[in-house]
């Protein structure tokens, strides 16, 4: 594992969360990255692996951000930011692009989250506030169609409210869709029994994570003791 152990800091930075998630993506995977921290995953492809990035607006083989001045308004990602295309890319229309998603051809999708429930339910598109402008984009298609859904998120909101909870209070994006969660504090696997600890970030105690999680955190492999 190439993550630098930082014995000073408590927990992972946004980049480290992305780097940690990238470690769990197998070589040769077709990957779709959500907006925000998930986009950073592309910077941390583990040595010896090649991922192909899909962006749902119609490009397979998305490359890195272009140099300043090299942007093309007709070459953007799903977040509407300028991107590039690798040698070996392909363009296609929206129905074909979502056929890749809905038809379970994309291996891994990494998304942000507002809430994740212990049964894998994901809420990441709306707080349900009455005056909010509802906007869903491709999130529901991605969670329904992609084989494996990873979530990268801060463990709690800025105000310290738990995002990993027993049951989502916000409107769902999908039911039982999340496989793994990468937070600043830990990696959690969503199992049929609930949240199972996979790894603790440096200098993070099990009790700290449990305290900030509004659901039972299981540790069947005694990760807490090994850390």
């Amino acid at each position, binding site marked *: 594992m190439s993550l630098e152990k930082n014995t000073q800091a408590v927990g992972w930075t946004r980049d480290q969360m992305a780097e940690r998630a990238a470690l769990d993506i197998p070589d040769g995977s077709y990957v779709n990255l959500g907006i925000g921290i998930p986009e950073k995953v592309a910077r941390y492809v583990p040595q010896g692996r090649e991922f192909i990035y899909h*962006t*749902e*607006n*119609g*490009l397979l083989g998305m490359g890195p951000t272009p140099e300043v001045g090299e942007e*093309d*308004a*007709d*070459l*953007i*990602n799903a977040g*509407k930011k300028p991107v590039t*295309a690798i040698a070996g890319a392909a*363009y*296609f*229309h*929206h*129905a074909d*692009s*979502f*056929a890749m*998603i*809905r038809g379970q051809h994309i291996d891994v999708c990494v998304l942000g989250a507002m809430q994740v429930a212990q049964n894998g*339910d994901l809420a990441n598109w709306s707080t349900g506030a009455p*005056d909010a*402008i*509802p*906007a*869903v*984009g*491709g*999130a*529901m*298609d991605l969670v*329904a*169609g992609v084989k494996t859904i990873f979530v990268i998120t801060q463990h709690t909101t800025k105000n310290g409210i738990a995002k990993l909870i027993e049951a989502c209070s916000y*409107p*769902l*994006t*999908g*039911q039982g869709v999340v496989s793994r969660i990468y937070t600043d504090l830990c990696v959690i696997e969503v199992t049929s029994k609930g949240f199972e600890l996979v790894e603790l970030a440096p200098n993070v105690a099990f009790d700290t994570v449990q305290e900030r999680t509004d659901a039972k955190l299981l540790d069947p492999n005694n990760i807490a003791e090994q850390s």
Partner: protein
Amino acid sequence: MINKFSTTAADAVADIFDGATVMIGGFGEAGSPIELIHALIDHGAKNLTVVNNNTGSGHVGLAALIENGQVGKMICSFPRTANSTVFPDLYRAGKIELELVPQGTLAERIRAGGAGIPAFFTATSVGTPLADGKEHRNFDERDYVMELSLTADFALIKAKEADRYGNLTYNKTARNFAPIMAMAAKTTIVQTSHCVEAGDIDPETVATPGIFVDRIIHVENPLQESRLNAQGRTYP
């Protein structure tokens, strides 16, 4: 001789009637047929139902069409934009209707409309508020919702190249919704920066066969939404 080239954008949109359903290509500004949208603003047809993934940005293009009070209803997946309050303000004021559709379901409903499929099943949105009131059905132990096709009276799209038959190519991710909207609309109106001879487009690489296209106008150097917005431009 079949010749789908039209003279002006004004002529091309002249028969768009009040109450028409109009699909407008583009994902954000990529592929947005801004000159055709501005012609539609000049034309003035009202109470339109517009199908687009978004609701425009700034005060030009689609946002300007909405701001001009011509749109009664939006069918889209993502009506929020960082730099536009046009749709949100009207929506909160109850002056515009919204049908929110997941992006892939939106694309597939349009494709179904063009392909003569009245309805299909998808797992997208099952268990969410967007599945409320929709017919559910189980296939092979998984739940799906039934979605109806979308068709339109008109489609406005932007292409890279067009020939007199209406064969089209697109530029990179500006392709997005254009090929399926061209299929789903009774009348498809295209703006292109390159009018070419029949045969200039390799038949292997035609992205939209001419059968889906009705009228083409030439816009050599299309305006770019983000640049206009950076300049604080408005339309009209």
